[in-house]
């Protein structure tokens, strides 16, 4: 990941995912504001629409990639001792992969 997401490519990823996240959050926040799910059935029905489900999975992917690039940059800037830096990056990776797998078990 660090080779793929380093330098210019990471910069590009960060901007593409930023725009995706911006659009999706506008949709999500307006849906939850103006048409909140009334009950369990309505909520599950909304979540099982193919477009919503695909959108959610793309959103989670973009969110995790954006989080990796952003927090990785912050760790590299502030955590200098190599051992500590590797530990922090490993914990971050586990945090994000764990979150992603959990979402997949719910929506996958």
């Amino acid at each position, binding site marked *: 990941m660090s080779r793929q997401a380093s330098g210019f490519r990471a910069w590009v990823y960060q901007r593409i995912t930023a725009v995706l996240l911006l659009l999706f959050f506008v949709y999500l926040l307006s849906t939850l504001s103006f048409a909140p799910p009334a*009950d369990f059935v309505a909520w599950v029905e909304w979540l099982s629409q193919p477009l919503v489900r695909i959108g959610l999975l793309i959103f989670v992917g973009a969110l995790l990639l954006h989080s990796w690039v952003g927090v990785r940059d912050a760790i590299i800037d502030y955590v200098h001792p190599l051992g500590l830096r590797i530990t922090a990056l490993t914990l971050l990776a586990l945090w994000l992969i764990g979150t992603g797998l959990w979402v997949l078990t719910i929506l996958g």
Partner: protein
Amino acid sequence: MITTQKRPFFLNLLVIRLPVAGVMSIGHRISGVAMVATLPYFVYLLALSVAGPAGFEAAAQLVSGWLFKAFLFLFLWALMHHFLAGIRYLMLDIDIGIEKPVYRQTAWAVLVAAPVLALILLGALS
């Protein structure tokens, strides 16, 4: 005779006089890291809400409590700050707003607008 004048050298954020764009920029980072830290909590709420009618009720109960409202305000503040600062960075990438008075004004605008938008959203979501 040459004397070296002792000049201050520090990067302590509590001592340094940081320009407003710097404050906003650090806010962008803090808000980002803070939101990443809260991610599993939202997945937990999602898992609970789809676990069945009882789970949905439990999740609905959770998100209507004052403790969650306080957390949600902070989260929305972070999100709105990150949004606005992010849009500002995307604009700077294409050379919009890089002149001296403008980039300071937009930094101020981000700092002020984020908590206001968060409050409005909190009201809309409640």
